[in-house]
């Protein structure tokens, strides 16, 4: 069955948003282009498998997630060799004194609902994920966005569990710092009411 002109136009309009997520996940513009092209092609070849009930974007994101895993698998060798060169600084050293205590008082972020229901918060979060160093961002996205289990990630990228935890530890500390600065410090009523 051929896709209707209307369907084609809608698919085309959603390309930028798919590309945004593909880039966040893969951290490689060429691979991201490929994953999105494969997604759009799959959609155009099988428009009948789109059950009109759900949103077109939801359906496309679902396809994209599979294509992203394919892309990671295909490039796993390159991913594991480039992995450890982009760690960024070690936040642990900045956060803790030699005796293992926090250097600074930790902030109360208040009621999560206050922040989470705001669209601007999602934008700040997205910007913070984008700022993560390459491999940290990739692993964080695999875990939190593709929702892969730790052992699956280790297998796909041929890394050890310890290596994965170290990278996710750094990614989460970095995100926390970024949200503290970009949201909770920046919007006085966004955090503590």
């Amino acid at each position, binding site marked *: 069955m051929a896709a209707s002109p209307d369907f084609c136009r809608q698919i085309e309009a959603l390309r930028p948003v798919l590309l945004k997520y593909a880039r966040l996940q893969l951290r490689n513009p060429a691979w991201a282009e490929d994953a999105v092209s494969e997604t759009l092609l799959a959609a155009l070849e099988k428009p009948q498998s789109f059950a009109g009930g759900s949103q077109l974007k939801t359906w496309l994101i679902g396809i994209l997630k599979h294509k992203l895993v394919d892309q990671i698998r295909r490039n796993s060798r390159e991913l594991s060799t480039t992995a450890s060169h982009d760690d960024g600084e070690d936040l642990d050293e900045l956060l803790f004194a030699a005796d293992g205590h926090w250097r600074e008082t*930790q902030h109360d972020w208040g009621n999560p609902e206050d922040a*989470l229901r705001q669209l601007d918060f*999602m934008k700040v979060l997205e910007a913070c994920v984008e700022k993560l160093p390459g491999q940290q961002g990739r692993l964080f996205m695999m875990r*939190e966005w593709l929702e892969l289990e730790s052992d699956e990630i280790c297998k796909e990228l041929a890394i050890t569990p310890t290596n994965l935890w170290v990278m996710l530890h750094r990614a989460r500390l970095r995100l926390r710092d970024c949200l503290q600065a970009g949201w909770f410090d920046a919007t006085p009523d966004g955090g503590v009411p």
Partner: protein
Amino acid sequence: MIKLRISCRDATRITLQAEDRRMPLAERLSLRLHRGLCGNCRRFARQVQLLRQASARWRQHAGE
């Protein structure tokens, strides 16, 4: 005998690792005890929880 008293640095490591795997009993116990005594680590744990909820919301937001 297991080490019951842990530092904030260890508590942070366990808190973050618990996002990605089930931690051994001894570490969960030490963490609970530490959080009972340390306000900074309690607040940090709530930050991590918010981070997790935020990721879930963001994922959902992508599909909408």
